[in-house]
């Protein structure tokens, strides 16, 4: 039978703590990528530090993918303990295949209810017969066979991962993979992922958090201060290792009040500086960010958003820190807010953020989220871009140095400690041109103008947004939701519905002229975002002229939006 070809396959490994399903997902992603496919791996875990139920969710594809699909094609359960908790995160259907061991408990309700076809994989019996086989390696082998990949595809990945555990572990793992592959038949999936077209560009496997770290270093960052918080920690850990390679350093701070102020100190001393946090940490940093605005010290602050408010859901995604990023500062505090749209875009946006911070001597907030931050993706190597931070530095100083001079460009040359004649006191108090504290209305207004104007007159260029299509219906979205939106409108196009997508990468300052041009001819607007309070829609209302006909699709986290959700919104609109 000739199987239909599809462009992506979605599968999940499920199991309770210690079953190793997350690392199995990572091995499969690596094997599939080596085979030439692209892919996306996210994980969902229980709240336990160890031993919690876990799921590795993968989508393998013939082209880069930035979101999960609408259905899982394959479920491989190492066990079903507490699997019911994934019911909402794991859309299944009658075409889904589940591989599981009847001895590891009853198939959960959500799996049965979806009409999933269950195929037995006798893990317990196999490990009883071969005590050195691990169930997750058997599961990996089974998945490879179902996907039509040779079991050898995982060899390099396994050797890589278990290299330090000794040859016996590698041999046993490879044997288990082979055993798993032989335990299932190929062709059980109703469709087949074709071999990928050879791509000319180099490909990477990278997480969004790593990508932010890399982009920042490419943009010139050489100093970081860190207070760990899920799901941002990986950025800091990547920087700890890699800043050291490029002549930079990371310091662990005692809290976020310290980390934000440490990078202000480091940047004042001349090093392009960054910190990364999540919502609770951002709340603590806000006063410091305002100081960086007032004292005109460039910094980059990454917020990897998670469910909020308060401690919220540390391990799951939401786009609900937009308000604090835009409006969190007291006073009139110009700053920049940017948001990457995919794992790959994290490299570019972090690099650009660093460039913008240095160019305008201003704090830049980069809003990533847990979904893309912790996702591992196989992508084409992001293009090199020329954005490298260039700060205006005062070097040979003759006469009175005016750090905040009002004669000349609004971005004023900054003297670095050690420069003779450049001594000034950076101050969060309203100040004069020299930095001297002043409560005079004239100084206050002049410096407010200076700080606002340096942003207004800056040309942000085409990178301000992703623009796609030209229909009279437009979707406005942002951040990691963009991936699902782009796939959703591609589906709608097959129904003959032409939809335009506008996804601003630059959220602050607003770009009214560019947005007006992007919205030209749009009759209907759909705003799609992942926040309970429709924060993005309210932001758009505050800053832009929107068409009269606007619909808002705002769903709280943590469930990701999927292409089908977008497609249904677009087609429901037509049907109505």
């Amino acid at each position, binding site marked *: 039978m000739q199987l239909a070809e599809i462009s992506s396959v979605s599968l999940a490994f499920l199991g309770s703590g210690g079953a190793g399903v997350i690392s199995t997902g990572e091995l499969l992603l*690596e094997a599939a*990528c*080596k085979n030439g496919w692209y892919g996306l791996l996210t994980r969902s875990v229980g709240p336990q530090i160890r031993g919690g139920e876990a799921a590795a969710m993968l989508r393998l594809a013939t082209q880069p993918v930035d979101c999960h699909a609408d259905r899982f094609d394959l479920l491989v359960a190492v066990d079903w303990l507490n699997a019911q908790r994934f019911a909402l995160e794991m859309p299944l259907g009658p075409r889904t295949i589940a591989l599981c061991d009847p001895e590891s408990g009853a198939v959960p309700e959500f799996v049965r209810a979806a009409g999933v076809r269950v195929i037995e994989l006798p893990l317990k019996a196999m490990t009883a017969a071969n005590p050195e086989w691990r169930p997750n390696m058997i599961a990996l082998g089974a998945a490879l066979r179902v996907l039509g990949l040779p079991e050898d595809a995982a060899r390099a990945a396994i050797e890589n991962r278990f290299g330090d555990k000794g040859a016996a572990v590698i041999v046993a793992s490879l044997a288990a993979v082979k055993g798993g592959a032989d335990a299932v038949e190929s062709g059980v999936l109703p469709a087949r992922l074709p071999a990928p077209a050879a791509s000319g560009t*180099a*490909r*990477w*496997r*990278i997480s969004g958090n790593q990508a932010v770290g*890399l982009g920042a*270093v*490419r943009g010139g960052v050489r*100093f970081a*201060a860190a207070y760990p918080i899920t799901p941002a920690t990986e950025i800091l850990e990547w920087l700890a290792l890699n*800043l*050291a*390679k*490029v*002549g*930079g*350093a990371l*310091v662990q*701070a*005692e*809290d976020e*009040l*310290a*980390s*934000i*102020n*440490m990078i*202000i*100190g*480091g*940047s*004042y*001393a*001349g090093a392009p*500086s960054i910190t990364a946090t999540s919502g609770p940490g951002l709340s603590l940093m806000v*006063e*410091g960010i305002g*100081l960086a605005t007032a*004292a005109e010290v460039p910094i980059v602050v990454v917020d990897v958003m998670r469910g909020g408010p308060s401690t919220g859901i540390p391990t799951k995604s939401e786009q609900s820190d937009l308000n604090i990023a835009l409006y969190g500062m007291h006073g009139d505090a110009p700053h920049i807010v940017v948001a990457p749209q995919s794992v790959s875009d994290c490299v570019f946006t972090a690099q650009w953020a660093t460039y913008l911070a240095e160019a305008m001597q201003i704090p830049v907030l980069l809003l990533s989220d847990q979904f893309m931050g912790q996702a591992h993706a196989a992508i084409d*190597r992001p293009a090199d871009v020329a954005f490298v931070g260039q700060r205006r530095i005062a070097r040979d100083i003759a006469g009175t140095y005016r750090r905040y001079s009002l004669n000349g460009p609004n971005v004023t040359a900054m*003297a*670095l*400690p*050690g*420069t*003779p*004649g*450049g*001594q*000034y*006191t*950076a*101050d*969060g108090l309203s100040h004069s041109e020299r*930095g*001297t*504290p002043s409560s005079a209305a004239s100084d206050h207004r002049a410096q407010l103008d200076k700080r606002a104007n340096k942003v207004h007159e800056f040309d942000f260029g085409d990178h301000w947004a992703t623009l796609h299509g030209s229909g009279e219906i437009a979707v406005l979205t942002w951040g990691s939701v963009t991936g699902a939106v782009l796939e959703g409108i591609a589906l709608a196009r097959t129904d003959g519905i032409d939809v335009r997508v506008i996804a601003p990468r630059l959220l602050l300052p607003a770009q009214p002229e560019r947005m007006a041009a992007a919205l030209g001819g749009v009759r209907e607007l759909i705003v799609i975002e992942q926040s309970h309070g429709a924060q993005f829609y309210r932001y758009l209302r505050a800053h832009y002229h929107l068409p009269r006909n606007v619909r808002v699709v705002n769903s709280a986290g943590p469930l990701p939006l999927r292409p089908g959700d977008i497609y249904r919104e677009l087609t429901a609109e037509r049907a109505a």
Partner: protein
Amino acid sequence: MSAEPKPAYKASDFKSDIAPIWCPGCGDYHVLLSITRALAQLGKPPEQVAIVSGIGCSSRIPAYTNCYGFHGVHGRALPIATGLKVIRPDQTVIVTTGDGDGYSIGGNHFLHACRRNLDLTMIVMDNHIYGMTKGQPSPTTEPDLDTALTPGGTGLRPFNPLVIALASGANFVARAFAGNIGQTTSIIVDAVTHPGFSFVEILSPCVTFRPDQRSWKTQVHPAPVDATDDPARAARRIMTDDGFNLGVLYRGNRQPYTPKFGGSGCDLSELEREFEL
């Protein structure tokens, strides 16, 4: 005494042209004098010194000097100084703060700066009060001080910052009195010269909200014994003294923290290698 070579700098070289706005009589005037004299004695040019503070009357010092300065937000002087010193270890970095700024809102940073032991000097102008906001109690205020915010007093025991500094790992601990300009100057010179984190608590009267502190000048006296390098002994002495022993009380020999910077820097493309498939 013999004629020494004329030092390169005078105290006035370290003073800016901005007139301080402290209340006349405030101890902080003395501290400013002592800092500028100490800097002159240390002999580094003003541009190689950075003075970092938070918010408070005491924290106004940076702009009154002719050094690089950072007047940050309330409580965060130490982290700013930390970032600065990490990036520019060649700079002499001095934190000037108050008992509210340094011990209360910035208390956590105080502990960790002592523990981190970066080569910084922290000068606290302790007046046992929040001067700038009109006289509320700080962590070093006596329990029975009647204030508008705490009628009848806080009823809370003040803490002992010197012992906390010792317990947290500060490498140099001294107490000074603002009015003793000469001694304060030499303690500051000593503190800046000593490697690692040096902590100098200066009793600096607030004449406006604590006029009773005018009597401090008759209460202070030199510490009867020399500094020790044993933190336990130093702590015991400090916990049993009358709070007015002046001098260097502890001089440790912990290795200062130096952050690890990579070498000259590899090619950025090397960082990509881990991602390549």
